């Protein structure tokens, strides 16, 4: 299996949970596996575009929370398999930052009068440093695209500003892990494919509950 292929790695990530957020995250991962991280943004935008106001921001925050849960568990998994050198140093810092994101987004959901979504269980195809770095960059790329897709659907400017402060950090994680995997840190000029109608058509089945 090519550790740098999204199709090879995202497919093997298991997200076991019954919440709508977990469902959309599974769809996002399936879309990323099929069409690359760039397709995840439009997919997520469409998923939240279906909301008819009111609960929209809370739904998006809970989705963001689910994504942050995934990233925390991913970095914990990295610590379990054993990392060393620069990668260990990076992952240690990133884990702390993702944990801080979970706390911040949980608080934002509660501030908005919502109930923080339950954490799904995750399984990652990570056995060593190589598979950790390969999947890590793909997950972070996917997370960046998901945030960027959801951003324009957020109605509260404060929520949008807070999401921005998090997604910039995810993009930095992605770039650092890509460099560690000897890949371009910024593979494209825009972190979202703006014209992805074909992919959206194909992804449609995943976003129907």
């Amino acid at each position: 299996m090519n550790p740098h292929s999204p199709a090879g790695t995202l497919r093997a990530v298991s997200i076991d949970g019954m919440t709508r957020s977990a469902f959309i995250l599974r769809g996002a991962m399936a879309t990323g596996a099929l069409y690359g991280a760039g397709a995840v943004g439009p997919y997520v935008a469409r998923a939240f575009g279906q909301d008819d106001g009111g609960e929209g921001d809370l739904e998006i925050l809970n989705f963001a929370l689910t994504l942050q849960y995934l990233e925390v568990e991913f970095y914990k998994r990295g610590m379990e398999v054993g990392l060393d050198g620069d990668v260990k140093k990076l992952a240690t810092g990133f884990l702390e930052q993702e944990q801080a994101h979970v706390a911040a987004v949980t608080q934002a959901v509660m501030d908005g009068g919502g109930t923080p979504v339950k954490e799904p269980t995750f399984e990652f195809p990570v056995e060593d440093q190589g598979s950790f770095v390969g999947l890590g960059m793909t997950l972070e790329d996917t997370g960046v695209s998901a945030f960027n897709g959801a951003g324009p659907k957020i109605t509260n400017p404060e929520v949008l500003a807070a999401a921005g402060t998090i997604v910039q950090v995810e993009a930095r994680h992605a770039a650092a892990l890509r460099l560690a995997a000897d890949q371009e840190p910024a593979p494209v000029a825009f972190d979202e494919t703006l014209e992805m109608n074909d992919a959206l058509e194909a992804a449609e089945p995943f976003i129907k509950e």
Partner: protein
Amino acid sequence: MDSPITSGTEDEGPGALERLARDPSSRKRFLKSVGTGAAAGSFSLLLAACGGDDEEAGRPGEDGPPSSGASGDLAIVNYALTLEFLETSFYDKVLESGMLAGPAEELAKTFGEHEREHADSLRSLVEEKGGKPAAEPETTFPLESEKEILALAATVENLGAAAYLGQAAKIQDEEILAMALSIHTVEARHAAALNILIGKDPVPFGSAGVAKPAEMEQVLQMVMPFIAS
């Protein structure tokens, strides 16, 4: 605390920029000084478009968008376009200087292409929305050594990422917001890669992991030295 507009390890303390951001009268003085000849013509135009030379309307950083709705969005896009012009010109001049080699040169080439694509897309977007794109400013950068160039590149990219972050929540138009968000994270990737290249933390925000935005006045003041008057 790290400044949002450096590569993150230089401790500048609560300096002039923060005072400027807090203090309306010094902000006004700054905007006036920019508007009365310190900047190139295009830059003055940009500030005029942002309402920066108007005492009542000129507080884009603190009091919400420079003006509401479509004209506010266009001012933000032109501000972003000006930053992209600066970045494009920076990488052009870096590559012309011949000071970089190997992986650093490769990164500069790729990043420069990205900035040009950003500028092209933003310019088209302004036109599409019925506005007048900002003009390309004349630039000047200190490019004496590889070390200086890479440190400046990291500063510029971290500043760019902070600048986009500072505007995101002020944008009304969904299409403009989508483009700004997708550029924001690419600037962040550039910043992280350059930070790593010069031995700094790719995420220079501590364990809270929350990026810091920069307001328009801060950013414009930071880039002033690179505008040839």
